[in-house]
């Protein structure tokens, strides 16, 4: 029979191999899923794994979706490494979009992009920080569970968004659609190429990768931040403040999610609509874990999750399958990864049936 045998040390090989095996498993289960839905699995896989990288434009779309995922995941990785479980990045993302919109709507024809773009982005960061700060305050002051608080605040944020776009911020010339007016050109995040929606947000994301790597692995503050997650008693012994770690983790991840929200409304979308929350904040949790909470690893996982988003949309238009296939694939990947991670700490062994001893 097959047996799991504990490894003396976590395997370095499986640390990298486990996400890859998880991806293979996801594809295999995906094939079964397409067959069960009565679709050609080759077509299905093509939609998910080939279409998104087929042309320059498709690649651009891949990056457009991977950017917010990566930015949010970077913040979450810091949180999770600090043993702070921020599940509410979606809400922080929405509040970032709302704050950014607040600034963007103040622009007029005479505004300069050199002033407006940074202001819009800063407002987004601030919005996300405020929202995550609520969680940090409740956790630090009242020991409220940050998982519940941050998750519940997602729904509050969506309510706030709904109130604004159906109420005070509704475009008077918008035929009563629940959305703000289209932002002035001065607030638009500069695009990098003609014919593609990639904007400078991708540079911010890559800069974030670098900053997070340096902070986590080369600064004392970043090192101290992670000790609370690894060994709380050692952190207390060393004198690292746990409330400082909570605030830093939540403010950074909230700020990152808020930035992603600002980049989205002032970038590809160009206005605030009720359809801002598309689950990036939740998908980024998967991005963070599949990327091993490592800045470089998350670049790859963000691209992968972005493929699933695009694949889901294409599956809807090309194959007539529900868009929720995106969520199914995301979930498959996460669960496969959790299963494969067992191999990091255990090795699989075939052992003959054990001889019973008298």
């Amino acid at each position, binding site marked *: 029979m097959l047996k799991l045998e504990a490894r003396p040390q976590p395997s370095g090989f499986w640390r990298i191999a486990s996400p890859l095996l998880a991806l293979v498993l996801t594809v295999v289960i995906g094939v079964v899923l397409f067959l069960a839905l009565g679709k050609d699995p080759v077509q299905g896989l093509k939609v998910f794994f080939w279409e998104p990288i087929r042309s320059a434009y498709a690649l651009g779309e891949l990056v457009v979706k991977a950017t917010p995922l990566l930015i949010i995941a970077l913040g979450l990785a810091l949180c999770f490494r600090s043993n702070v479980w921020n599940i509410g990045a979606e809400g922080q993302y929405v509040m970032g979009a709302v704050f950014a919109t607040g600034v963007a709507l103040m622009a007029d024809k005479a505004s300069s992009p050199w002033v407006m773009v940074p202001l819009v982005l800063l407002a987004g960061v601030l919005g996300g920080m405020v929202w995550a700060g609520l969680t940090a305050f409740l956790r630090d002051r009242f020991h409220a569970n940050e998982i519940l608080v941050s998750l519940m605040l997602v729904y509050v944020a969506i309510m706030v968004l709904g109130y604004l776009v159906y109420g005070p911020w509704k475009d008077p010339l918008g035929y009563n659609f629940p959305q703000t007016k289209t932002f002035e050109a001065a607030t638009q995040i500069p695009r990098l190429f003609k014919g593609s929606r990639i904007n400078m947000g991708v540079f911010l994301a890559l800069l974030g990768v670098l900053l997070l790597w340096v902070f986590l692995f080369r600064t*004392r503050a970043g090192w101290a931040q992670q000790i609370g997650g690894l060994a709380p*008693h050692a952190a207390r*012994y060393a004198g690292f403040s746990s409330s400082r770690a909570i605030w830093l983790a939540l403010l950074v991840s909230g700020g990152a999610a808020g930035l992603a929200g600002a980049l989205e409304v002032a970038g590809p979308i160009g206005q605030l609509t009720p359809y801002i929350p598309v689950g990036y904040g939740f998908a980024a949790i998967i991005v963070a874990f599949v990327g091993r909470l490592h800045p470089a690893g998350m670049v790859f996982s963000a691209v992968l999750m972005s493929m699933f988003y695009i694949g889901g949309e294409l599956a809807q238009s090309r194959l007539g399958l529900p868009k929720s296939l995106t969520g199914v694939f995301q979930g498959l990947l996460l669960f496969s990864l959790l299963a494969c991670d067992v191999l990091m700490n255990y090795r699989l062994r075939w052992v003959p049936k054990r001889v019973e001893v008298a």
Partner: protein
Amino acid sequence: MSPVPLLSLKGIRKQYPAVLANDNISLDVMPGQIHAILGENGAGKSTLMKIIFGAVQPDAGDIRFNGQAVTVRNPQQARELGISMVFQHFSLFDTLSVAQNVWLGLDKSLSLAEVTQRICDKAVVYGLDIEPERPVHTLSVGEMQRVEIIRALLCEPRLLILDEPTSVLTPQAVDKLFDVLRQLVAEGCSILYISHKLHEIRALCTHCTVLRAGRVSGTCIPSEETNASLSQMMIGSEPPALNPKVSQPGAVVLEVRQLQLSRQDPFGMNLSPMDLHVRQGEIVGIAGVSGNGQRELLYALSGEDTRAPADSIRLLGQAVGSQGPTQRRALGLHFVPDERLGRGAVPSLSLVHNLLLTRSDAINGVGWIDMNALKTQAESIINRYQVKAGGAHALAQSLSGGNLQKYIVGREIDAAPKLLIVSQPTWGVDVGASAQIRGALLALRDAGCAVLVVSEELDELFELSDRMHVIAQGRLSPSINRADAHVALIGSWMSGLWNQPAGKVN
């Protein structure tokens, strides 16, 4: 016809990535034998015991139990065979109660209430003081060990393995434990006894197998050996004799005045107002059985608990009672806690990274870590204190207890502290390393540092201290010079009886 050995090992071999832990080890344990396993840190004792107990699988070799070849796949199976083990590193779940922890390892047909009752019964029989409802995280090291011992006894073992069982017991409790063990042996149980305390092995054990660097380096009958001959077999040479000079205490470094604290957890100990001072160039020892307020006192002194009034703790004249560990460290207070894994060191990080817990020499002005400087620093500590490790990048959890302790003590001494507080400096550390650590503490004292040692080992305190206090029931005794103290007096003080003349105590 010679009787069949209860346990027989032949050619046991275990290779770990960095080290060959066991190399061709053979030994026989006869029924009713108390068999000692003696060896330095890293000699392979713990690995061998884990193999017998099924927690680790050997690469080669045969195990026979009661004459039958067996493969012990896991501890569950070992218990079914009748093998129980008390580990040196406790395997208890912090969040569960004592009774729940014991219940986990037992026959599932029993209810929790029945288990609780059985714990109480065993506790009475063997005189082990225990409260079954208490959550394990509230227990001191000594109390956790009692739980482990009771858990092992509840399985009614035929072979009981004890790894450093007496480290945290009072002399009286050690005697009691020995009575228990002898009683078990009289009932036909065999015992494998791992200890660094040579006199204990000589007093208790009937046979002894000595390990050195993963191999059997000798077998003997302990009662026919001397401490010197035993330790020679173990380390190949006699441990350096300590020759403490009379201290020349200087200015007061630590002054505790009327420190009083209420407990933070319901099973803790309230600290009654206590006074204490430590001067430059002296070692002050605090004796006492664990769970009598040591934990609370040390938390308050190290700065991990900042509830004390600021001026109840003064460091070099500064009121630091409400300051955290970082500020106190900046003033020159360094602390070695008794929990090595998880408090004194982060188990999943390397020795290099573990420096950063208390040392910031390799950090430049803007908080940037100089990885090369850090590695050099770690290597120098490893070399100076002869830490056996697979290099500076070895994970803290991969070191044996004694080697990790040497590293942590080295890390704090290397910081050139003005006041060093050490809790249980040589708990579970072998003779050679203990002598080394104690020697380092004495050298530190001679260099003018103030040292406060909290320990449950009287031998150690008598060897190190210039003055001693005793802590009992959250109260601290007056100080007594080592020259005036003797074991019987300190023993009676441990019961809180320091207000009566020693002669009247029995």
